[in-house]
């Protein structure tokens, strides 16, 4: 009986232990994957972690890649966060990637979001520290919003005062709104402006027409602009003109030289003519003599015409002239 009992007790013990193993095993099964996942540690230092806790998730591009392992203060009273990251995600986190505190949805748990990082940077290693990305806390946003609200209030107050003044007819806009004369003047101005605009329209039409003509093929302006042959001719002409000018210039220089020479060289015939008074006087006399000689020659010739020897010739000549 005692041996049978002992046997029964042993079986009972075995069943008991078996059940315990089963229960513990099943409870552990849920976390079994995580227990055997290879991980590595990286850290980052924040000024403020906004209630982040160990065990909170770490996201990379919206994918959970690890959890927060530890949160400690460092000597500068900053918060050092040690993150446990899955080994398989290591290659995707670059050394220049940045970490920031965010939350799962609007009101969810705090999380660390790792983002950025360029492929040319090396992947992070165990123990690396990631730089942080500056974020704006809700409190700061609210403060800015509050400032905006105050500004808005001032603006709306001002608008209110403005509109009141406008209704009362104060100020330029107020007068514009309320003053009949001003309105009429404005109307008149607008009418004038309309006319002016019409004139301008006509003018622009004319200008347009003119430019159209300019654009017409065969026109001088168009040819000037578009015809390359004419342009070449003009260019040639200009070159020739330039040549002419340079020749003229040379000619003028020669002339100048000559005149200088004349002026300076008193022995040359022209110099004598210009500068020697005696010569001038004799020249003058010579001319006078020449004048009187020609007069006398004229007279002599007249007398010759009446000479009987030559009379016949002159008569014949007159006759020929008349027939022609």
């Amino acid at each position, binding site marked *: 009986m005692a041996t049978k009992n002992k046997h029964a007790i042993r079986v*009972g*013990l075995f069943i008991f232990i078996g059940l315990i193993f089963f229960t513990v095993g099943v409870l552990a099964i*849920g976390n079994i994957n995580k227990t055997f996942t290879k991980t590595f540690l990286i850290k980052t230092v924040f000024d403020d972690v906004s209630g982040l806790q160990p065990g909170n998730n770490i996201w990379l591009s919206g994918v959970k890649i690890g959890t927060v392992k530890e949160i400690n203060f460092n000597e500068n009273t900053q918060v050092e966060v040690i993150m446990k990251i899955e080994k398989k995600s290591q290659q995707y986190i670059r050394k220049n990637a940045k970490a920031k505190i965010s939350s799962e949805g609007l009101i969810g748990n705090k999380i660390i979001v790792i983002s950025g990082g360029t492929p040319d940077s090396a992947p992070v290693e165990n123990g690396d520290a990631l730089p942080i990305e500056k974020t704006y806390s809700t409190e700061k946003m609210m403060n800015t919003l509050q400032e905006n609200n105050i500004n808005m209030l001032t603006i709306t107050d001002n608008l209110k005062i403005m509109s009141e003044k406008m209704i009362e007819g104060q100020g330029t806009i107020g007068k514009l709104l309320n003053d009949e004369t001003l309105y009429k003047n404005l109307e008149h101005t607008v009418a004038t402006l309309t006319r002016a605009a019409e004139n301008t329209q006509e003018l622009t039409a004319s200008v347009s027409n003119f430019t159209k003509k300019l654009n017409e093929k065969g026109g001088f302006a168009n040819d000037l602009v578009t015809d390359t042959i004419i342009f070449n001719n003009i260019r040639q002409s200009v070159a020739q003109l330039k040549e002419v000018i340079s020749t003229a210039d040379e000619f003028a220089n020669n002339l100048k030289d000559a005149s200088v020479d004349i002026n300076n060289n008193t022995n040359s015939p022209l110099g004598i003519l210009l500068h020697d008074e005696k010569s001038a006087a004799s020249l003058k006399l010579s001319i006078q003599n020449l004048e009187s000689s020609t007069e006398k020659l004229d007279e002599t010739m007249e007398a010759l015409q009446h000479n009987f020897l030559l009379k016949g010739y002159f008569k014949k000549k007159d006759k020929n002239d008349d027939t022609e």
Partner: protein
Amino acid sequence: MSLKKREHITTKGLDDYFLGIYNAFKFVRLFFREVFKPPFEFKEIIRQCYEIGYKSLPLITLTGFVTGIVFTKQSRPSLVEFGAASWLPGLIAIAVVRALAPLVTALISAGKIGSNIGAELGSMRVSEQIDAMEVSAINPFKFLVVTRVTATTLMIPVLMMYFAFVGLLGSFLNVNQNEHTSFIAFFQSAFSPISFLDVFTGLFKSIMYGFTIGMVGCYKGYNASRGTEGVGKAANMSVVISMFLIFIEEIVIVQISNWIRIA
């Protein structure tokens, strides 16, 4: 000293405890041997189903209805805070189908049915009716234990489903009062997050709880010690142990179902 050592493997208390486990194991083994062996006591099984299932309906209705209303009432503030009151039906449905219905039904049944079975069989044992059955060539295990355990195993899932339905009705009542949601809208919203796995896990849990309640009640009653005190003890112990086991099973099954859900 050496003689004492030979008498007990560990200590006397622990030895008795392990012996109890062995006996329970033997009892369960015997049940599985008997349950598939003809003759089947269908008439008695149906009578037990009636006793266990039908007669528990008023209690289950009340508890289910109250649970539904109270759970909805208590959940509303936290959801309203996020403007998510429309998620209430889905939330309640998940809570009821996955956890509340199987667990509360099992606990209530453990109290009502477990104690009933324990006391009934205990008094039969004490009044030597079981011994008399053995003498008169009726297999008392088959007639008393197999029928009852089969009945609880079949009836607790039914009661669980009924509990879930009544609980959702209670929840609908509360939601309708507050958000004026229609019946159709409520149940569409309630069933949309429920998957087959949820229903299957709930049913499986109920089957396990039913089996546990029947088994523990029968074991404690069947092995009740002599005397009227034994009857009370058997009733009491069957409730305590079945509740304890229900919680252990709950945590194990939830763990497994979550594992399946993720995988």
